[in-house]
């Protein structure tokens, strides 16, 4: 087995006196899709934010490739260029058109020419069914369209690793499918994805690995089939029966 792309070891994170991540160990190999599941407050989002350096860890290490992300001497801006993240609340820039949202980072951070950045952006929009929305501002788009635009924005810098933080949680049920279709497409193209999700059916469909988090540790980890249909841990079973009963 080759070195994993993302290597998380013993990561701990506290907010004040509240311990959110106790000790997380996790590997994500290249071209893998790893889903984080667990109740709200279990630390899924915090873990993703630690990987993207939006939070500093309180202990442990995170490596991307051969570089250590948790080294305080590291230029966070350089590290973030290799990672793309999509948020639950889209967080598109409301004062920019969809096209400018997508081309901002390639042009300003990666020094791509406007012409080339816009051409790549239009290809992405086309792929995601948003070709006619390039000049619109985000407030003119539906939630599903905004989230697809946000994914396009994260992809525009060609990151090595994609982080999805409950990207369908703010969407109406009938709009969830269109966003998940995009994720399936990305998996088929061989991208490496670490995602927190509430969509158990989708996790089963797309994930190579599923990790169940509770109280800041990974309680159970395995293939989607194993964790979701034949969980070994009582905590996982409790969580799944709670979630699936209401689905």
């Amino acid at each position: 087995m080759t070195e994993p792309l993302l290597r998380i070891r013993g990561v701990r994170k506290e907010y004040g006196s509240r311990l959110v991540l106790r000790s997380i160990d996790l590997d994500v190999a290249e071209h893998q899709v790893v889903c984080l599941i667990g109740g709200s407050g279990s630390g899924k989002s915090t873990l993703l934010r630690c990987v993207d350096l939006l939070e500093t860890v309180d202990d442990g290490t995170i490596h991307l490739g051969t570089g250590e992300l948790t080294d305080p001497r590291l230029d966070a801006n350089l590290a973030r260029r290799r990672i793309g993240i999509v948020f639950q609340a889209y967080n598109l820039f409301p004062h920019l058109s969809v096209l400018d949202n997508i081309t901002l980072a390639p042009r300003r951070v990666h020094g791509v020419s406007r012409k080339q950045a816009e051409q790549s952006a239009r290809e992405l929009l086309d792929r995601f069914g948003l070709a006619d929305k390039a000049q619109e501002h985000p407030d003119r788009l539906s939630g599903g369209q905004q989230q697809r635009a946000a994914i396009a924005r994260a992809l525009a810098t060609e990151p090595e690793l994609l982080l999805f933080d409950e990207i369908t949680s703010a969407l109406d049920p009938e709009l969830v499918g269109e966003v998940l279709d995009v994720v399936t497409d990305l998996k088929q193209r061989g991208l490496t994805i670490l995602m927190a999700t509430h969509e158990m059916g989708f996790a089963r469909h797309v994930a190579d690995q599923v990790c169940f988090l509770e109280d800041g540790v990974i309680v159970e980890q395995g293939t989607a089939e194993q964790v979701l249909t034949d969980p070994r841990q009582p905590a996982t079973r409790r969580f799944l029966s709670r979630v699936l009963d209401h689905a």
Partner: protein
Amino acid sequence: MDHGTTAALNQQATPPDENYRPSDRERERQRFRRSRKRRNTWIAALCTVLCLVALGAGAVASPGWERVHSLFLDSAEFRSSLPGILRGFWLNIQMFLIAEVLILGLGLLIALVRVTRSPGLQPLRLAATVYVDVFRGVPTLLLVFLVGFGLPALRLQGTPTQPWVLGVIALVLSYAAYVAEVLRAGLNSVHPAQRNAARALGLNERQTLRHVVLPQAVRNVLPPLLNDFIALQKDTALVAVLGPLEALRAAQIKADYDFNYTPYLGAALLFIAVTIPLTRFADRLQRRAAQRTWAETGR
């Protein structure tokens, strides 16, 4: 669960329904709303006219009305004074425009210094805080006196001596402090998630400020910013105490010469003629900003 809803990707707007006719009940509702609206318009107009008549009658019936009328509302005096005041008012406009540009620049600089976190700027941050505290606390008129008479008294090489320039300097010093605070509030009003999203894309702090935070901040505070400029437009009259021939000074000279206060009224009308359109413009921006906020949070 269903992942296969690609059809939803290309939704079309529903075509207009040509066979639709409003029901009798709906037509009746519309008739009622129209008549109610007509009635309200009449009531509003009637009340306004009654109030104006009562106020006018009260003024005319007051014992001093004859004197007030001849001292403040002399139409011949008004006509003869207006050209001079208008010439003076042109100086007010010039001072306003020059001061506005300088205030925006200085205010923005101070606001940016106050919100950035880089350790090397600590002395500047302190200076900016002291500046805002001091110049927001001193009355603008006092500042005009201090700069107008104090700066030339220093007899430094290269200090301006024209009164209107000194007046503009005083206005800039005073208003930049206010505008800096408005802009700082705007910078802080941008949601932290926006900054996070920008940083996550690899933008550095400067790029994040320039391309993501500042444009949204300015948009958020445009109405209060315009309010400050309306106040500035009026306060250009404070420079009159230094002696340049602007509208208030011109009116004052004429009034003293003719023993009649009508020129003051002329000057007041000129200021109103500029501030009212500006105020309406600010109102409209504020309404549009409110609508936009609703649209964003309303989904």
